[in-house]
């Protein structure tokens, strides 16, 4: 970013200056929302461990279920399970347009479940006993600790808990991020050199260097994650083609998706035919795709045109090596037994665009590569968050001494607004995220809509942070919110000990690495917040640091969502 970036206007000056202007303003107005999307998206990488930590009552159940599975006698055979499933569906859901049987897990044990489309075309489910095939009544008691767990971060990061409207808002922000990235690259004449440049203790320069370093280091990741995120919902974002050639109704869109994903799906013939014995189909399917059966899907059951699809289980080792997360699938005609279609694991039914779409889903949600890649995504995501945070802070650091009067007589008030938004969007969001974990332990168990209370508290705490940041002078706002963040992070393990009796040491001793990981990351974030707070309180102390430590510190402090402006200056 050139230093005179904001002195030029939109589309004026040279090519590079015009894009410096675009980068500054496009980056600024979207940085707060993008920081929130990035930080929560980064947490969403570890959705399961967070959910595990947030459902402590399940820990005992999980352990008991594992013990039971290990000691239980061999349960019913695959043929028996399939027969029970077919019998149940024939008796209770003869008219459904689709049956789906999940006979067992990949080892042939586990639960037996059946699914179908009910009369409203809604997906419905039942579980059958693996001892006698009778339906198991779902437990009448709701979960003790109703929570959305880590899924809250997933939903928030792509639709802000606001449905389609939220999806569009995040979509616009992601597009703006791509524009800001491209204009940032154009602005940068020395992209390689800047990567090795860090000028510590130089105020504005240091912020610029930190912003450049995290951005350049992770540039491919940032492009990839923003683009694949957009591509995942591209059907919503660019509906023109589907509207012109298929129509604008919901059914038209479904027809398009069916044509993409289920080419050659048969129409019902109207002639009745019993669903045949499924076991031979499953055996043939398993051989064709080389995977154990996960699901048996029957289109138009009871009709002569019925089609039987056998879907496989992806083993962890297979899935880790493949970018496309699809499983194997074999389709048969129920009447003739003819093979209609075979899809090998990792392949797709359609052509290159379908495969690209599947791979982009895989690239964004990282089901491949195992734990190592999840951590890589976590770190890159934090650096992306740091890129937004340093950019937003740099904007204000630049203007603190030298008003640039972009907003005429309102400039001072707009700057104040931006200062407050910086504090609330960066430190405040950190407080809201860890506050969500606190809410999980503090909201009383068993109250109605308990999960909504937790999410309500997440937004409530964040809203308070916004109000606080505008009421207090910027420096005080930074320090107070960082102090609250540090306290909430560092006290979380104690809160857990008080409310559930679990603590980090026992988690490690019991091999509960998921809970231990959540609390360790939380402690690390708290330590960084303390570090940032000390840095802010004793600005003169910075002079004793070596440049290298300063660089790491500046980057990591941002990454924990604890960016501190050089308010002290």
């Amino acid at each position: 970013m050139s230093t005179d970036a904001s002195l030029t206007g939109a589309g004026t000056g040279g090519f590079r200056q015009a894009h410096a202007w675009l980068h500054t303003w496009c980056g600024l107005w979207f940085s707060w929302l993008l920081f929130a999307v990035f930080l929560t998206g980064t947490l969403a990488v570890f959705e399961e461990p967070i959910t595990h930590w947030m459902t402590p009552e399940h820990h005992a159940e999980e352990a008991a279920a594992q013990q039971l599975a290990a000691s239980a006698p061999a349960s019913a055979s695959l043929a028996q399970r399939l027969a029970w499933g077919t019998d149940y569906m024939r008796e209770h859901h003869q008219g459904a347009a689709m049956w789906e049987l999940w006979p067992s897990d990949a080892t042939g044990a586990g639960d037996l479940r059946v699914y179908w489309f009910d009369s409203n075309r809604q997906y419905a489910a039942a579980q059958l006993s693996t001892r006698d095939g009778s339906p198991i009544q779902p437990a009448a008691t709701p979960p003790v600790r109703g929570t959305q767990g880590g899924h809250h971060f997933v939903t928030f990061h792509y639709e802000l808990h606001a449905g389609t409207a939220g999806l569009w808002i995040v979509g616009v922000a992601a597009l703006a991020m791509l524009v800001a990235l491209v204009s940032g690259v154009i602005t940068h004449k020395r992209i390689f050199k800047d990567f090795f440049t860090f000028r510590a203790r130089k105020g504005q320069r240091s912020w610029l260097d930190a912003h450049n370093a995290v951005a350049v280091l992770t540039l491919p990741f940032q492009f990839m994650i923003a683009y694949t995120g957009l591509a995942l919902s591209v059907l919503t974002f660019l509906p023109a083609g589907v509207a012109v050639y298929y129509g604008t109704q919901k059914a038209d869109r479904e027809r398009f998706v069916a044509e993409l994903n289920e080419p050659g799906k048969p129409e019902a013939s109207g002639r009745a035919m019993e669903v045949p014995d499924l076991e031979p189909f499953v055996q043939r399917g398993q051989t064709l795709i080389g995977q154990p059966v996960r699901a048996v899907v029957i289109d138009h059951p009871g009709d002569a045109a019925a089609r039987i699809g056998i879907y496989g289980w992806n083993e962890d080792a297979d899935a880790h090596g493949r970018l496309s997360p699809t499983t194997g699938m074999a389709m048969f005609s129920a009447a003739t037994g003819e093979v209609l279609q075979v899809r090998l694991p990792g392949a797709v039914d359609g052509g290159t665009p379908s495969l690209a779409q599947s791979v982009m889903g895989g690239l964004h949600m990282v089901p491949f590569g195992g734990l190592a890649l999840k951590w890589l995504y976590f770190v890159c995501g934090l650096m992306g968050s740091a890129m937004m945070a340093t950019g937003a802070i740099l904007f204000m650091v630049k203007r603190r001494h030298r008003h640039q009067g972009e907003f005429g007589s309102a400039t001072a008030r707009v700057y104040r607004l931006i200062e407050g938004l910086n504090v609330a969007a960066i430190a405040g969001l950190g407080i809201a995220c860890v506050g969500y974990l606190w809410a999980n332990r503090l909201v009383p168990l068993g109250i109605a809509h308990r999960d909504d209370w937790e999410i309500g508290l997440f937004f409530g705490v964040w809203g308070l942070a916004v109000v606080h940041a505008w009421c207090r002078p910027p420096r005080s706002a930074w320090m107070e919110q960082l102090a609250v963040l540090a306290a909430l992070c560092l006290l979380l393990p104690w809160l857990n000990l008080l409310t559930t009796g679990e603590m980090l040491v026992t988690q490690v001793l019991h091999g509960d690495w998921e809970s231990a990981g959540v609390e360790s990351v939380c402690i690390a974030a708290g330590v960084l917040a303390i570090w940032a707070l000390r840095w802010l309180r004793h600005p003169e102390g910075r002079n004793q640091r070596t440049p290298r430590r300063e660089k790491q510190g500046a980057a990591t402090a941002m990454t924990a969502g604890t960016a501190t402006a050089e308010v002290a200056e």
Partner: protein
Amino acid sequence: MNDKKTPRRSAPYLQRLLGASLGGYLLASAWVVFCGALSRHAAESILAGMQVGLVIHVAAAIWSFSPMPLARMWLGLLVPAALLLAASGVLMHWRG
């Protein structure tokens, strides 16, 4: 330049924003429609068109904020969009 800020300066800024958002969206959508017209098996080529369309929208936004007269900016967005739509119409008519 800040002290010479006049109300007239906000108009080109607004037009560039409109060019980047609506103009870019129109161009990307026209491209998707054109992709659908290319093939009888429309579903796959529409999907490919949508995937590329995102990149087109980003490029159009970059174009809109590049230093050039506003008239040229609009021409660069609207002429390709019109050509793509016209070509789609011809292709569809030709196929029947």
